[in-house]
């Protein structure tokens, strides 16, 4: 019981800290705007991020990274930015602690319900962001990621929360671990990719109008954002495929059919098909760029609907929210 208490404490604290981190990043951008920055966006080469990173490929051209243009001149901007990163790291540690204590409290892998899944996915999202920050310095992602983490963990501790309980018999399987970890990681990558696609659309619009100011000024070029978003989604897609396959194998064991058009299964397929569309669109003339980004955002919406809408609104075999 103590573990559960401290787990909740850590998670609630992580929400507060993420919100503070978000404010710090917001202040960073606001300060950058006030100083009237007109210097061009940093043109550093973003290398070896995304999919390549996660397969721990050696980072190529690292020395090139060190020759980047200095990020920003104003010390206040830099101060706020560093504060945001520091707070994000604290929030991340709190959130990891929360998940680990939850696992200790439950005496099992902490993925038995919607609450546990959300807090785990948030650890993956912020973890990936921090790794990217360390390897490639994309601090411009700080604001949306801390926002996402604050909202995710916030929803988890308020709306999705359920007390520790053992698993229902259907979840007693190794596929429980495989299926859900894959879902959490690919979900994290879909989310980061989706956030980037949104940033891409905003930046692209500003570029087309020739009015790149404030926060947008410090984002990389829209082409580069598109590329990083693609890497995340290209990493997430095979993993999502695997998630669905692992789910099908498990369903064959648990329910005696590998595919039964349960609402969750259907929406997992819908999400898969939308992202397949994204990958195809990206290599079709006339569909690249804006259209592909819109498809990626629709894919993310479908992912979220599958997660929240299906769990809470529709009854099916995957109604494991326990709320």
């Amino acid at each position, binding site marked *: 019981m103590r573990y559960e208490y401290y787990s909740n404490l850590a998670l609630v604290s992580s929400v507060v800290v993420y919100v503070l981190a978000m404010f710090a990043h917001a202040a960073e951008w606001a300060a950058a705007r006030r100083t009237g920055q007109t210097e061009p966006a940093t043109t550093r*080469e*973003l*290398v*070896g*991020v995304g*999919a*390549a990173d996660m397969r721990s490929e050696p980072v*190529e*051209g690292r*020395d*090139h990274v060190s020759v980047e243009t200095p990020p920003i001149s104003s010390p206040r901007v830099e101060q706020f930015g560093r504060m945001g990163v520091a707070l994000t790291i604290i929030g991340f540690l709190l959130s990891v602690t929360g998940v680990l204590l939850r696992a200790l409290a439950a005496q099992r892998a902490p993925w038995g319900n919607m609450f546990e899944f959300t807090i785990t996915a948030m650890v993956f999202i912020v973890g990936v962001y921090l790794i990217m920050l360390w390897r490639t310095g994309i601090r411009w992602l700080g604001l949306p990621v801390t926002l996402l983490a604050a909202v995710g963990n916030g929803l988890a501790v308020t709306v999705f929360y*359920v*007390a*520790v*309980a*053992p698993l*229902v*018999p*259907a979840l*007693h*399987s190794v596929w429980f671990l495989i299926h859900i970890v894959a879902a959490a990681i690919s979900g994290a990558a879909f989310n980061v990719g989706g956030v980037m696609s949104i940033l891409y659309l905003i930046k692209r619009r500003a570029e087309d109008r020739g009015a790149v100011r404030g926060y947008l000024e410090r984002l990389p070029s829209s082409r580069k954002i598109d*590329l990083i978003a*693609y*890497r995340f989604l*290209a*990493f997430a*897609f*095979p993993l999502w*495929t*695997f998630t669905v*396959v692992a789910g*099908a*194998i*498990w369903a064959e*064991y*648990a*329910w*005696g*059919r*590998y595919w039964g*058009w349960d*609402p969750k299964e*259907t*929406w997992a397929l*819908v999400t898969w*098909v*939308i992202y*397949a*569309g994204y*990958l*195809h669109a990206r*290599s*079709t*003339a006339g*569909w690249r760029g804006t259209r592909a980004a819109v498809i990626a955002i629709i894919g993310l919406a*479908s992912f979220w609907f599958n997660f929240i809408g*299906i769990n809470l609104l*529709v009854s*099916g075999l995957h109604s494991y929210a*326990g709320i």
Partner: protein
Amino acid sequence: MTAIKARESAADPSGPTPRPELPRLGWRGGLRYLWTQLTSMRTALILLFALALAAIPGSLVPQRRISPVRVSDFINEHPTLGPIYDKIGMFSVYSSPWFSAIYLLLFVSLVGCIIPRVGVYAKAIRARPPKTPRNLVRLPAYAHTDIADGDHDVLDRAAVALRRRHYRVDVYSDSVAAERGYLREAGNLVFHISLVILLIGVAIGALFGFRGTSVVIVGQGFSNNLTQYDDFSAGGRFTEADLAPFSVTVKDFDVKFETGPVQRGAARLFRANVEVTERPGAVPREEVLQVNKPLHIGGTTVHLIGHGYAPKVTVKDAQGNVAFSGPIVMLPQDSNFTSLGTIKAPDARPERLAFEALFLPTAVLDDQGPHSIFPDALNPALFANVWYGPPKVETGKPENVYSLDSAGLSQLKQTDGQPVRIALKVGDGVNLPDGKGSIQLDGWVRWVKLQIGDTPGVPISLIALGFAVAGLCLSLFVRPRRVWIRVRDGEPGHRVLEVGGLDRADARAGLTDDVAELAAQLSRRPEEVSTT
């Protein structure tokens, strides 16, 4: 679909060259035109989105195959919308003609794209890197460096360096051409071919497979023939002879529910001890059947997919003879196993008897009427209405054992006109008014719902999926690249080494760095240090 992808891809330097030939007139030209349209990338994209859209209603509207009860409820609740939905196949979306049309078209489009592409790839797999272009400066990445005049083996070293980086290398007199990343296209093709094989596996399962369920009362058995199934569906190629002649006896069944404050009533354990006899006369073996741990008997799998209660009752008729005795399977209506069923005693004389009954494992009687508040049998009780009527002629027609056909029956009423309601605890018995007979609740047993099935295509689909995921990874993570290196004369006494690079997939990072690094590496001769 991806054949066009290559053609339309602006990243592909071999370029979109519009085919000059126009479709000929006549049906052949028309067909060819249709085929080109169908296998185009744009059509594939549209079909993909159509598939995603078409799959959605099935998750929001109840589906007949999953929950027929909710479908009929829906039709009753929506008298105008219901029949329209029914007509357009909204209650069986995934077998509806429009849904089938979309995915079949998608797969035709897929096949139409893979076949030519396999041919192209078969040639490309042995292809040499393209010859060094005249002007390396025009390439997306370019670096140049001076090298010593006497450095004659620089191109050989370049070839070695590139081979070490897994390039396919051609050495010419003054230049080196290299290419890598051939596996990307291979992965792409493997992925798409695997999808077709997956569909074939699914089709085999649908044609030759079968699946059915049977409710078995604990202590009783199931033997695998059609008469023992409660529902059964099989593919067109299935014959009854395909059923393996095994039998399964359910010896006992353990079930536990959460009694703590969190998720009270949630299932915590289902376990059936069963005895399997592979074929008549074989030695029976003991097995444990659990959720997630199906039985495998030959090629057939047996899953435990549900359970419920069967109250044991004894009904005596007006003459005092036992008209019915035994367990009655009742169907759970909610998560607390409020169970509904009918007890029929057609042999009761002079009048036959029937009961509409409610079995409650943990019974509570309050303003909501009788209902169960916990799924385990802590306070079991049976509530029933009584019906009676003249004996019916035995027609041999099958009738629903779970519902009462009240034709020819009248409800037993009290003197004030209210229907007689019976409430029994285990061991209780009650005499019916007017000397119609008696009913007693002797006890209860559990029943389990077994799902018996065989889906022959599963291994094919599974292997196909393994290849699909592997192919997908190759096609997304292998990034083809071309590099050319040339040595040309520069200022007197010096020669210039040029390195140019080109990425053939737009997601590759670090091309500029790689090219620069290669140039830097090659400009340093190993023995250079000693000579200066």
